[in-house]
């Protein structure tokens, strides 16, 4: 549920009062519903090159209302700013300033999406400067957008086109309500792997997916989202959470596996269960995690070790089993849940942040290993998400924490799940080793 303040100020007299008092004005975000239009209005494709032309004609083939030039006063669903041919920083001016004239025409919950190239891929200082410039541009623009509109960027590695499968996959994700709480973020498409789904409503049809820590909160939301997208689910949690796990399993028509993932044989048990019951294993979502917060000065061995054991050591061990298994070879996908704590740090969470930072390192280093099987591994780093856990934060602290982002509200467990479902899909096959933040562009951790 959207928080009460957001509901109050998003319409009627509440909105007027908040505006006059200069209070935060979060809106109820447009979130994905099956059969919902991809965007809320026409899509303006800015950019003069061949990449922009190709992309525009692809969007036309999706039956979107595509504009190559802005129509004055027409409300826009999205602006796609194609910047794939930058040679010098000065090249930014023309497309960016043209787009600028359309900013006031963006509808609520609209999208601005840049498509540019990897700065690290070039040795030419001017090219690198232009490409890296997009980073600062987009992140600042995202902070200027209002009313649920978001800005995100797609970065193409050498050899990747504006119409490569995962470029289009990422574009669809950012245009849609699936990315409602993703703001100010970049996704790098590193290869031409991946393919768009036959049925956009069931992108995971035929896949068998394992979700750990699925008994409640974000894990349960992931299971529901993967199920909605067509996957067959194996939901995993510790035996003590078995009753909640059973309820989730029955809701998503999957099987429950009561298993402590820190057991040394956990990986094999997961593989065996998936293969014996469902015939295959395509997707593993490492969501299970624990917190044992203490200032480092008060940290004891038990708190430190248990967090490391569950949050990162278990994932590493399970991944080793997965990569060694002959049953995890058909475009396998691994998605781990990291945390903005692992990026920006968080007082009292040295152990947790170490484990989550570890997840991101693991993901980067595992990408080439799983890539040999045509697979991918990525992480999603949630920011402030409205869960049972964050509901226990004292009111004032919680209220500040949830407003400290560009969307001025906390995210929903389903927002994290949407990002994970995208990264687990075939369409994301060209994206690997990435960390995608789902934080509404939280002010900490940049």
């Amino acid at each position, binding site marked *: 549920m959207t928080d009460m303040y957001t509901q109050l100020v998003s319409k009627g007299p509440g909105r007027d009062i908040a505006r006059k008092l200069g209070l935060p004005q979060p809106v109820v975000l447009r979130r994905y519903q099956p059969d919902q239009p991809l965007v809320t209005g026409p899509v303006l494709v800015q950019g003069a090159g061949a990449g922009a032309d190709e992309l525009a004609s692809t969007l036309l083939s999706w039956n979107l209302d595509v504009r190559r030039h802005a129509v004055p006063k027409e409300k826009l669903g999205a602006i796609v700013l194609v910047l794939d041919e930058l040679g010098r920083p000065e090249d930014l001016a023309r497309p960016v300033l043209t787009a600028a004239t359309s900013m006031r025409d963006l509808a609520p919950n609209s999208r601005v999406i840049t498509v540019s190239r990897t700065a690290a891929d070039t040795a030419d200082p001017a090219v690198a400067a232009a490409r890296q410039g997009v980073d600062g541009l987009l992140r600042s623009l995202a902070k200027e957008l209002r009313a649920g509109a978001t800005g995100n960027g797609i970065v193409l590695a050498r050899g990747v086109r504006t119409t490569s499968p995962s470029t289009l996959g990422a574009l669809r994700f950012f245009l849609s309500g699936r990315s409602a709480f993703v703001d100010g973020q970049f996704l790098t498409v590193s290869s031409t792997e991946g393919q768009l789904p036959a049925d956009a409503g069931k992108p995971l049809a035929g896949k068998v997916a394992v979700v750990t820590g699925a008994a409640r909160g974000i894990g349960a939301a992931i299971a529901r989202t993967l199920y909605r997208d067509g996957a067959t689910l194996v939901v995993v949690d510790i*035996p003590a959470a078995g009753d909640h796990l*059973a309820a989730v*399993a029955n809701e998503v028509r999957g099987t429950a596996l009561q298993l402590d993932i820190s057991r040394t044989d956990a990986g094999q048990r997961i593989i065996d269960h998936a293969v014996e019951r469902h015939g295959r294993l395509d997707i593993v979502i490492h969501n299970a995690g624990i917190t044992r917060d203490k200032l480092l000065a008060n940290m004891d061995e038990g708190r430190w070790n248990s967090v490391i054991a569950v949050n990162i050591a278990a994932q590493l061990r399970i991944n080793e089993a997965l990569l060694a298994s002959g049953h995890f070879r058909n475009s396998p996908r691994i998605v781990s849940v990291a945390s903005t704590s692992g990026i920006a740090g968080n007082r009292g969470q040295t152990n947790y942040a170490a484990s989550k930072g570890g997840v991101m390192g693991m993901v980067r280093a595992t990408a080439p290993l799983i890539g040999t099987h045509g697979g991918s591994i990525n992480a999603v780093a949630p920011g402030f998400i409205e869960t049972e856990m964050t509901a226990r934060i004292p009111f004032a602290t919680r209220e500040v924490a949830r407003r400290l982002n560009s969307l001025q509200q906390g995210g929903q467990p389903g927002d994290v799940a949407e990002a994970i479902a995208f990264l687990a899909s075939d369409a994301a096959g060209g994206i690997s080793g990435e960390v995608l933040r789902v934080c509404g562009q939280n002010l900490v951790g940049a």
Partner: protein
Amino acid sequence: MSVNGQSAPGPKDSTPAAAPASSHAPAAPAAGPIGGSAAAPQLRKAVIVGGNRIPFARTGGAYTKSSNQDMLTAALDGLIARFGLQDERIGEVGAGAVLKHSRDFNLTREAVLGSALSAETPAYDLQQACATGLETVLGLANKIKLGQIDSAIAGGVDSASDAPIAVSEGLREVLLDLNRAKTVPQRLKVLSRLRPKDLTPDAPNTGEPRTGLSMGEHQALTTAQWKITREAQDELAFNSHRNLAAAYEAGFFDDLLTPYRGLTRDSNLRADTSLEKLATLKPVFGKNLGAAATMTAGNSTPLTDGASTVLLASEEWADAHDLPKLATVVDGEAAAVDFVHGKDGLLMAPAFAVPRLLTRTGLSLDDIDFFEIHEAFAGTVLSTLAAWEDEDFGRTRLGLDGAFGSIDRSKLNVNGSSLAAGHPFAATGGRIVASLAKMLHDRGRVDGRPARGLISICAAGGQGVVAILEAH
């Protein structure tokens, strides 16, 4: 031995209670083991896919506010989640409860309707005291063997916390007559019959209707008869707790149990108990027998709430659903004793049922790898074993040449039993069947034949049901 002074003679005692194999045995091929597997009249195999139960809770504990229907539904939903049976039309679900409200006339069907199973799954209730759970397994397995159904869920549930309380006979008669009365004067006349004592409710008890003795007092007679010592009973109880605690530690129950209402383990389990602690408990049964009383709260099962389920299937159905086949239900046997006239102890029927079943299937105690003898009381298990080891009992009561035999105690209740887990009457059978099936599957083969387990459950009314399972 007379337990209550009734003097009516029992039936003629000319034939041994355990008849020789020939009278029951099916025709030709069943005379002995074939291919290393126990012979039984099988048309096709009934396999145990797995089970699920909720942790058992001591009465007045975690499940005080849970009804039988709540608990049975929870146990079913956990089973459905474990095996992915959502919206599945199961051939038949059979379960029951010993302590049952009159409103629960369709308890099992109502639980099915409240579960994630297909609403088109038929269900029936069954009640055979503490043997209810095992009898549902045997009955449904038989239907599978006969090809009547391809899948089944057997179960049982009991709540001593949420037990039905009836109005007194006097009040009940008045209320019924009041309903039939047509005029005001008639109604007043009926009401005038009401006496204060009629307003005292009729609480449930475990007393035997024909003797008035509680089950514990009955067992105390048997325990004394077979001269079972306090030490032996305490040791059995200690082993039960130790074995159950070790099984939990090893993760044995991870795929047999789903937590419920905050409970993740059986609340009666005392992992830290010791023989010394058990020795300090005061006797609670058999205090008026003359001999020293030996039965305590430690070596008797407490009143317990809980539910269990077992998924049964034909091999074809299990294969088609990509489900495991842990064990097969080989055969079962029921027996009853004349405890009313004191001929045998109330809970001694399995002492007859087991020899009959083993004889019929061409097996001996040596052919069994796991013995699951329900621990209603430590004295029950030990009295049964003592009877089997007794020359006179073997000759005169079982019709054998001598003692029936003794068992290797290291094969007895190796993952704990009712003394530690507790005993929600109708749920005990399902607990034992699912656990034993998993143990047999883990053991696999013994001496080139499938591992084999024997279940023995005593029940009120002088009854007992026993069964043999084999690793698949």
